[in-house]
């Protein structure tokens, strides 16, 4: 995990519980969640029909897509119920002095954004 791959993703105090925010790493959209007091990061694009999970609803540790209410566990990315079946990619996250950082290298961001381009098509 290289140092330059850590990207600032916001201040922890700015997140209420069950808040979701989107950050961009190059072309890749990453969703940052505060769930039950803990922070998590996953790809933001739903694996089903190209909607952003950061527009969705977080209940406990489960994010629900705003478009069709497909559900994922934000801790593991696991797809929990139809119409989603493909899991989300999760990204390492750390807190330093109240600041949130997400670990995505430029190459990984480019590759993931490219891999997600076919979702919903």
């Amino acid at each position: 995990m290289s140092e330059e791959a850590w990207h600032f993703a916001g201040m922890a105090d700015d997140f209420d519980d069950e808040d979701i925010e989107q950050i961009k790493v190059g072309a890749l959209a990453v969703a940052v969640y505060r769930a039950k007091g803990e922070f998590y990061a996953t790809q933001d694009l739903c694996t089903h029909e190209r909607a952003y999970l950061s527009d969705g609803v977080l209940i406990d540790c489960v994010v629900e897509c705003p478009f069709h209410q497909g559900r994922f566990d934000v801790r593991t990315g696991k797809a929990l119920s139809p119409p989603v079946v493909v899991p989300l990619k999760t990204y390492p996250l750390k807190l330093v002095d109240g600041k949130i950082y997400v670990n995505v290298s430029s190459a990984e961001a480019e590759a993931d954004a490219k891999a997600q381009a076919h979702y919903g098509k």
Partner: protein
Amino acid sequence: MKRQEMEFDPFQLVDKKVRKQLTRRSDAIGLAYLCGHFSAIGCTGVLVYLTYGTVLLLPAMFIHGIVLACLFAPMHECSHGTAFRTRWLNEFSYRLVSLVYISQPTWYRYRHAVHHTYTQIQGKDPAMVLPSPTTWQHYIEQVVGWRFWTTFPVAITKHALGTMRPQDSWYVPKSDLPRIHNEARFMIAAYGTVAAVAVYFGTFAPLIYWLLPRMMGEPLQRMWRIAEHKGCDEGTDVRTNTRSTKASLLMRALCWNMPFHSEHHVLPQAPFFALPELNRTIGDKLHPMGQNLWAVDRQVRRTCIVSRAEADRVIAERKARHERVDTDWLCALD
């Protein structure tokens, strides 16, 4: 399709913080509505019992049927996962209500997801009610539920046999087909058991208290399905392709606020009890609200129905232009 490719992204209408407020779920409100709905079914069932053998039996069965057919509303709400905050409660209720209402839960969930993606797009929206051109035959078949009662048994039997209608297979992932097949087998077994027990005891109770009233109540549900989209634009802009309709407090309660249908399409993750507030927030930016169900239905009959010859001419023209035409009646089930 992605939200960003829609003619208009409805999320622009509602600020993110307001969305978070309006999408909060509640077990208490969900349980109050569900218990209320089943209590109403119990009361109208008693009415059927008390009028048995009198001339009032048919009206009583009709009232009972309306309440039974309105189970479409909690079924639809649970399919979105918005009826309760607690997931298992939502899923348990979804399966129970679907069984009584007569709908296959996982299949409906996939079909309805596609309806929200391709609302009012002919040949893509599997819940498109009365795609144009509409003839009187189409309208009457839709209102009486003829298409539903003739299509659903075929579809569920196919699922139980491990297959699927060709017009449905494109939107269900192969990995989830076994779940749909098993659900169909369970439902057929459940309905078969009810029939067997009724035959064994020599009773018509399932017919008198469930199936016949359910059929008698169907037209009112069908009219609501028509009012939600028919006569609106056949395009992807949620501000023009969906209609909300004013309804009495009783009807709003029985339909779990689904007459606020435009608002539901703007924010499908909002629970039913948040829709009136959403209407107050953004209602003026959406399709003009229908005055009432009867007025909308009258408007649909006056403005949308054409002769069979005219319908054939329109379909031929569209096909010549290589436009999608829904001649398979994908809408038959919703």
